């Protein structure tokens, strides 16, 4: 009896396995058939689609769920704006968003690229439009703005096409920008006052900046809050920019000893000089970016070179409840200012690194899915509408044809100071590190501690990155 029972259990288990496999196949076939029907239906629909508002199309269709990945998360100043906008779009269209947003860092970049490689990419993606996107652009996994406009002529028509960046992979425009960015130097004026140093201005030179750093150091404060072992990105960019002009900053050197290569080496040598003079925190090689940022907001360091997204981080730090804007300590926030990075050589102090480096992509996967196409287009149109762009952009650049007037009364003091700084900008140049991306940067980014301590020769580190870059071309 037991033997029969055991045999029965085994047979049942085997049958279940076989049925399971078979049913998967059957389901797959059914799904394929359904997809084929849907595709045929979609083709008909596509032919009939004209300039009708896509949000209406999205409303009319069956509600769908689209997956979206953005960088509006964590300390990003627009994280809450994004959540609100998604909720509003969901209410308006009846569709839902499965949000997979995460803080913008190397891990996210790897995740995005891996998702595309493994076919699990999101339907809509807010991502960099530079070389970081080259892999999936070259693989044809995102749809160009021109192709989308063939079906949805009004797609991104509120944008000035000249300001939309083309992909460096094929010079085609894919990503619809929202808010731009800038990189500049935040200042803790309380520390400056204690050290008897004047606030740097649009005319401050590199040598004057070094004098200020020395005074701050002599007063017992850390002049520069930076974690060179963790995030040397901004110093890398600006110190190289300081050797160049906006016209030639985006050049990639062919070798470490050509003109651009020498400029890069000199820029890194400036960082080494600052390190040797003791202007960075004592633990700059072992600290995280969060630690050095805390030293800046706690009034222990004077300068912080960072991006426009850090405005939100500083403001949050001045709130007793980081989630509640009404708890802002305005007096504390008034101690922070933002200014241009001191210029050297032919670069004017008012030449800034910035631009529109990110935008919304619609993936081929979503475009080819008749159920999701209209919803994806509707979502991007909603998130890039004039009203929404103005809300997200605040003190940064946009690509809008007609920018709505900014209501400064809604801004806090740091945002107003940022607006004031931006009004004096003489040029906005993209970051060369966005072109020299991924593993090319390892020898000079991760290798920065060895560069500043003299354990690695600067020219060798630069050449190693160039070799990696050339190998990838």
């Amino acid at each position, binding site marked *: 009896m037991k033997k029969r029972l055991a045999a029965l259990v085994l047979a049942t288990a085997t049958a279940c396995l076989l049925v399971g496999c078979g049913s998967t196949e059957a389901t797959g076939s059914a799904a394929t058939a359904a997809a084929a029907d849907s595709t045929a239906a979609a083709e008909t629909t596509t032919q009939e689609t004209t300039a009708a508002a896509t949000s209406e199309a999205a409303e009319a269709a069956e509600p769908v769920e689209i997956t979206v990945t953005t960088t509006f998360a964590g300390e990003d100043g627009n994280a809450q704006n994004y959540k609100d906008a998604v909720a509003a779009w969901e209410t308006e269209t009846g569709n839902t968003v499965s949000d997979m947003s995460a803080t913008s860092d190397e891990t996210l970049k790897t995740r995005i690229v891996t998702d595309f490689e493994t076919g699990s990419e999101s339907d809509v993606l807010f991502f960099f439009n530079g070389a970081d996107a080259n892999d999936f652009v070259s693989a044809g996994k995102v749809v160009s703005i021109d192709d989308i406009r063939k079906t949805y002529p009004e797609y991104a028509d509120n944008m000035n096409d000249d300001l939309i960046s083309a992909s460096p992979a094929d010079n085609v425009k894919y990503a619809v920008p929202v808010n731009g960015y800038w990189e500049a130097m935040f200042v803790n004026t309380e520390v400056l006052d204690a050290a008897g140093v004047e606030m740097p201005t649009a005319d401050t030179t590199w040598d004057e900046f070094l004098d200020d750093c020395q005074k701050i150091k002599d007063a017992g404060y850390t002049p520069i809050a930076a974690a060179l072992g963790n995030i040397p990105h901004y110093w890398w960019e600006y110190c190289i920019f300081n050797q160049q002009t906006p016209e030639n900053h985006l050049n990639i050197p062919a070798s470490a000893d050509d003109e651009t290569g020498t400029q890069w080496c000199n820029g890194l040598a400036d960082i080494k000089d600052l390190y040797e003079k003791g202007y960075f925190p004592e633990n700059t090689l072992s600290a995280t970016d969060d*630690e050095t940022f805390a030293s800046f907001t706690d009034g222990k360091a004077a300068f912080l070179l960072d991006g426009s997204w850090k405005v939100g981080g500083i403001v949050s730090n001045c709130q007793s409840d980081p989630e509640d804007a009404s708890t802002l300590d305005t007096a504390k926030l008034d101690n922070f200012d933002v200014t241009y990075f001191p210029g050297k050589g032919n670069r004017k102090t008012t030449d800034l690194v910035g631009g529109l480096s990110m935008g919304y992509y619609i993936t081929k996967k979503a475009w080819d899915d008749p159920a999701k196409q209209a919803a994806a287009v509707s979502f991007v149109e909603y998130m890039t509408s004039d009203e929404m762009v103005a809300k997200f952009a605040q003190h940064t650049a946009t690509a809008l044809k007609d920018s709505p007037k900014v209501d400064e009364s809604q801004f806090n003091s740091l945002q107003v100071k940022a607006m004031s700084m931006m009004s004096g900008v003489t040029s906005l140049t993209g970051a060369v590190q966005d072109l020299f991306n991924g593993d090319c940067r*390892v020898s000079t980014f991760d290798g920065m*501690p060895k560069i500043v301590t003299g354990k690695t020769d600067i020219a060798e580190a630069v050449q190693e990155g160039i070799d990696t870059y050339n190998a990838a071309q």
Partner: protein
Amino acid sequence: MSNIYRKRKYAVIFLIPALLFMTVYLYYPFFVNIVDSFQSIRTLGAGSNNWNDPWYSNYVELIHDEVVWTSLKNTGIMIIATLVGQVGIALLLALMVDNIHKGVQFFRTVYFFPIVISATALGLLFNLVFLYDKGMLNQLLEIFGKTFLTDWKDESHALATMMIPVVWQYVGFYFVIIETGLNNVPDELYESAKIDGATALQRIRYISVPMIHNVMVTCITLGVTGALKVFDLPWTMFPKGMPLDETFLTGTYMYYQTMEAKNVDYGSTLAVLIVVLGVILAQITKRVFKEREDI
């Protein structure tokens, strides 16, 4: 006995699913990983571009890469720290707890507790302990009159700062194993030794330690192989081998090359190195610390 227990073919049938699972999710990926180590792969998840030229170039780089040697040295130190710190301290604690009559359960729980906390959470916790500014340790030292801050993560302190939490976390694990082994030693042996006039130390030396020999061998084997796999806590506290690549272990360096430096094929080469190292060390441990069958 029923025939079903005598016929081995039924046992084999039940073993096949696990074998298939292991083949698909362990042995096949490992084989692919070996192939990857000879190819050029610049992006995680991407296919290979072509074979390396020469095909064994990653293995040549492995030998010349100073960071590999640093990570091997650190892994070696980690193994020693594991044996001395984890198994050694666990043995001492177990012997002491074995000699008390009250509170045994209390000590078991207290010492075992760190095991149930995630290594990442512990890493974040110890980050706060060793923080440069406002860290717990520096604040304590300040109370005792220290006038300057110590960077516990700088070159001279980093390795110790990394290993202390790792050792601390797993002491309880070995403590429980050894303590269970000590509980299995018959009380009669201790009683007769006591009657014969043996001191407490002699009872430990000549009864407890020999009787838990096999348990200790198990602990040592687990310790050595476990030290090779340590990853999460060191990576949380010292990402990217900070500072100056001084804290890389073989596991963290492999992760760094694959996930951060995007040098996937070289990461695969490091993975092969870790497996080879694991097999060699496991064999050495097996030969040096042989289990006794007479206990």
